[in-house]
């Protein structure tokens, strides 16, 4: 701040003289404009310091706005995380399921099947029934291991 009661110092006088010279000469192409720039910067600083402070309402509005921005970004982040989790569940649920590894039929079942599939094999059908019944249990066991048990 420049005090009016004190006389200007020799340094201030030199600066003022250099500013006046610069203004008279004009900032032509290639001219030294540093003195003008310094003076303008000093004037801006003085003007800014003379401005009234923020009113209480304005300060509150600025604070509110400052708080709202991070809150919104937190909400967006949460939504994005939920959406990403849902997408992961969807990808998992929609993947094509592989068939369950079923047990290979044993020779007894296959022999019963060969015997039953003869023109004279009607008597062998009951043996095929019982062999298929045992194999069915194995098949359902394998399916339940693959698909789980109902809740």
């Amino acid at each position, binding site marked *: 701040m420049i005090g009016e009661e004190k006389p200007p110092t020799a340094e201030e006088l030199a600066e003022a003289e250099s500013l006046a010279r610069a203004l008279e000469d004009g900032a032509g192409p290639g001219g030294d404009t540093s003195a003008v720039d310094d003076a303008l910067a000093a004037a801006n600083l003085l003007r800014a310091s003379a401005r009234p402070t923020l009113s209480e309402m304005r300060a509150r509005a600025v604070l509110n706005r400052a708080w709202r921005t991070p809150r919104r970004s937190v909400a967006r982040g949460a939504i994005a995380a*939920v*959406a990403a989790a849902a*997408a992961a569940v969807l990808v998992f649920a*929609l993947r094509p399921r592989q068939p369950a590894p079923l047990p290979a039929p044993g020779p007894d079942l*296959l022999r019963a099947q060969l015997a039953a599939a*003869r023109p004279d094999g009607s008597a062998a059908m009951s043996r095929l029934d019982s062999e298929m019944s045992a194999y069915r249990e194995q098949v359902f066991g394998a399916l339940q291991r693959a698909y789980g048990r*109902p809740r």
Partner: protein
Amino acid sequence: MKALSLLLLAGLLSGCGDASARWIDEARRAHAEADARLREGDPGAAERALRRAVTQPAPPDVAAADRRAVLQDAYARLARLELVAGKPDQALRDADAGLELGEEADVFAAALRTVRGRACEALGRDSEAARDYEKAQSIAGRLLEQALGDGGER
């Protein structure tokens, strides 16, 4: 809102996993019930239990091969019950319904061909029966070779 919809859809789809387990469990129970009814001398009730199993729609996440195995086994058993009950025409329809699901070289297709052959034989369609037996023999023979080749019993 989009996230909520995605979550809802994901929840529904995860419920499908339980639906497939339930479908398989119901098929197993149907066979168990059929066994119990046959022991009691009530083949009609056994047939109804299996008929319910084949009419239950399979959930979409059941693998096609597993769905086919479960249904073909049930159809073969139904056809066999119809044959024993003296209804070869119905037995033929059940065998055909099972084969329409696809014919792989496995025991389920072989069982269907066998019972179809029996039904055709009962209906006097001998040449058709012979073709069914031949197909069943071919599948079972190949599987037996594999089973023995893999170190199975001899």
